[in-house]
């Protein structure tokens, strides 16, 4: 009595509700009694009775919209016809709507009130108003009888879930019921050291699909296990295993378990499916933290700070003479990657990430030298001295000891693009367009349910648009034309200096829930031309793509809109986390239509603003095989 937060249900149901702020004894009216079906309630076994009870109570809150309960099957939202209903204190599902949604056959004999369901190897027979049922020929006692109400066949949810071997999960936060076919459960997460390398193991009950992403600031590896539920408590745990310092685990969306390893250094890794038991394993690279040089009587000594177990190899290159040290399973974390010496023996030392898992240190030497490498505490020392009387055996000459990732400076002079078909009438001549594909490199942007990345699809749309614009003579500058990370200041540098007629930022949208979909365009309210631009783009996108119109919106706080001093708009062509729109974004034909719509929007804008038309959309075929999914980068 009296506002207590604990309540014990009727003795028929031995579930105890404790400490739930949403519940008080007065909510537990007599109508709730006998509601809970004990059999087959899978969540009960996991000790989340309180949670389930609270969800059940959702139906009893006066005025509470019971229809707000959205049902998902394998992560896809089902039509609202399938929402669970409560009849006489039992949670029932409309069978007919469910049948078509999850692919089961339903035979209904109205005369006999007989319901027959077949799904894969599961065969169910039930009768209206009878608690006797059959599952694959075996009799089964139901806690609640199927009912006929308003011409709808209603059957007990828990029995259906159990009989069809569906996993059932209530999401309190979103008032959603998740049903899924397979039960992939992340059962254990382990961090250990293997031959000196940090190893992460994510154990599951069946083999799984997974994705990994390397994020910066702070350096983190994200592992997404698809179609999985978390079988361990979510949360954060500091760890001390090699380069790993913290481990975080949680459910990311209804069907993805996300594991995050926070790192002391930005190291690469190898990810692979576990063999002995199912799951995912990651082996992290050693970090090569620094290089230092000191002169000695014989010549000099290079010291490479690296864990003692990192394997390495020393060899020579000639013409010009070089000494090369390769450190394997290693990532370069040293700030100073070049040591200029200009000495008698050694000109300079250069370090680079030669391959994703190999750090290469090159000593440019003046002619033949003697080089010896040996382990010391804290790393590897390389001693250099004058050439020995007999030459070392020459190693094979290999090309490509240059750093793999050269940072390209964007060319501010709007170079005309090669390889674009000439058109007779250069209608866009003199117009300068800056295209800004969102995100890139370490920043994947939003993710689609099947693992697609915003950075890839928006780059592809931007490249298609670039080709269209270049074909009519526009000068196009891209803030990035490959999968690389671009800092904000670099993105807007030209637009801030007023170089260009239009700045167009191209994105794909996302929200935590899959109901969000459609197209929207943002602009800065202080800039009239930007408004014209945004409206032209949105109108054109609506006409061409026909997705939900979320409108043209003003924002003062979006970075590129705020910093740019030329007409600027940011378009969100579609929601990549919406299953249907993700499919569209992965379709090259749709991305071409996006590019065409943007072209037409720009054309409209130039006509209104400058009395210039870009003319019809040029018919050019984009390069075949431009598959954004294939362009995904591994850190």
């Amino acid at each position: 009595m009296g506002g207590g937060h604990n309540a014990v249900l009727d003795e028929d149901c031995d579930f105890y509700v404790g400490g739930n702020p949403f519940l008080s004894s007065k909510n537990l009216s007599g109508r709730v009694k006998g509601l809970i079906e004990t059999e087959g309630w899978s969540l009960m076994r996991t000790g989340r009775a309180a949670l389930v009870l609270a969800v059940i109570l959702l139906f009893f809150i006066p005025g509470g919209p019971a229809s707000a309960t959205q049902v998902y099957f394998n992560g896809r939202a089902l039509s609202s016809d399938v929402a669970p209903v409560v009849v006489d204190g039992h949670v029932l599902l409309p069978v007919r709507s469910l049948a078509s949604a999850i692919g089961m056959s339903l035979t209904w004999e109205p005369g006999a009130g007989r319901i027959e369901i077949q799904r894969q190897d599961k065969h169910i027979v039930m009768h209206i108003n009878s608690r006797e049922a059959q599952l694959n020929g075996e009799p089964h006692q139901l806690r609640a009888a199927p009912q006929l109400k308003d011409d709808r066949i209603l059957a007990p949810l828990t029995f259906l879930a159990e009989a069809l071997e569906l996993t059932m999960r209530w999401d309190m936060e979103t008032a959603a019921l998740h049903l899924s076919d397979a039960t992939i459960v992340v059962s254990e997460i382990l961090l250990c050291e293997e031959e000196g390398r940090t190893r992460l193991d994510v154990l599951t009950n069946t083999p799984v699909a997974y994705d990994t992403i390397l994020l910066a600031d702070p350096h983190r590896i994200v592992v997404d296990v698809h179609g999985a539920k978390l079988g361990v408590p979510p949360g954060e745990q500091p760890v001390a295993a090699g380069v790993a310092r913290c481990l975080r685990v949680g459910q990311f969306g209804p069907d993805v378990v996300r594991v995050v390893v926070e790192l002391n250094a930005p190291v690469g890794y190898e990810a692979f499916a576990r063999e002995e038991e199912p799951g995912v394993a990651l082996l992290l690279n050693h970090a090569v933290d620094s290089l230092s040089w000191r002169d000695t009587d014989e010549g000099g000594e290079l010291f490479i700070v690296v864990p003692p177990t990192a394997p390495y190899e020393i060899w020579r290159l000639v013409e010009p003479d070089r000494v090369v040290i390769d450190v394997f399973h290693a990532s370069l974390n040293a700030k100073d990657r070049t040591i200029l010496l200009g000495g008698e023996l050694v000109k300079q030392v250069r370090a680079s990430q030669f391959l994703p898992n190999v750090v290469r240190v090159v000593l440019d030497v003046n002619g033949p030298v003697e080089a010896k490498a040996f382990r010391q505490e804290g790393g590897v020392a390389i001693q250099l001295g004058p050439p020995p009387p007999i030459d070392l055996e020459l190693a094979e000459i290999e090309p490509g000891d240059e750093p793999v990732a050269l940072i390209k400076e964007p060319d501010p002079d709007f170079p005309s693009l090669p390889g674009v078909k000439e058109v007779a009438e250069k209608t866009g001549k003199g117009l300068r367009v800056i295209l800004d594909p969102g995100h890139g490199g370490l920043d994947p942007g939003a993710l689609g349910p099947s693992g697609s990345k915003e950075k890839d699809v928006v780059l592809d749309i931007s490249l298609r648009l670039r080709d269209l614009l270049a074909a009519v003579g526009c000068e196009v500058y891209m803030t990035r034309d490959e999968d690389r990370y671009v800092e904000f200041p670099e993105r807007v540098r030209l637009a801030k200096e007023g170089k260009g007629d239009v700045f167009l930022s191209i994105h794909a949208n996302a929200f935590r829930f899959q109901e969000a979909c459609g197209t929207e365009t943002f602009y800065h309210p202080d800039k009239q031309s930007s408004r014209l631009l945004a409206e032209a783009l949105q109108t054109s996108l609506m006409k061409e793509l026909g997705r939900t119109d979320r409108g043209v919106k003003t924002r003062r706080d979006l970075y590129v809109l705020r910093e740019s001093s030329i007409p600027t708009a940011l378009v969100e062509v579609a929601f990549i986390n919406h299953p249907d729109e993700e499919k569209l974004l992965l379709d090259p034909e749709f991305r071409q239509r996006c590019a065409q719509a943007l072209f037409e929007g720009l054309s409209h804008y130039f006509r209104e603003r400058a009395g210039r038309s870009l003319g019809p959309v040029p018919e050019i075929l984009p390069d075949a095989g431009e598959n954004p999914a294939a362009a995904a980068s591994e850190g």
Partner: protein
Amino acid sequence: MGKGTHKTLIALVVLLVIIIIWALVQRSGPPSVATDPAGAEVLIYLATRDGTSLVPVKRIVDVEKVSPQGLIEELLKGPRPGEPWVLPLPANTRLQSVAVVDRVAYVDLSEEMIEFHPGGTTGELLTVYAVVNTLAQLPEVELVQIFVGGRELETLMGHLDLRTPLEPDFSLVIEEH
């Protein structure tokens, strides 16, 4: 019977009057936050399921919870069963600290805020202004700056400029109906 009952009755009436006056005095506090002996009414900003808007949702909290910390904790609890709104922050986000200096609230949230964030301009806007609008209902808060893992952010998900404190944004808000 007679006299004793009378005295008790008078005492009760006096007590009742005192309680009523006290309750009235309590009510005339700051206009944005209504208080009464049982608790104070505050707003948390949740989102519509389709991600078009924020919705101010009323909550009754203990009077001492009418603080930056109390409000963020209340926000992070998300919607109650039956409410059609959703929490526009990753559900496992935790509050690390919040401090108000010169009318600016500096709120530090855990790494999950980024790591479990789905991205998108819409997603980022609703996340950020759910926090900003919720805090800015306090009379002592005018601007809000969001930190994650103790770090100042250039941006949360690559769209919003978070280098400076933000004002609340009511253009994103629709009224609860």
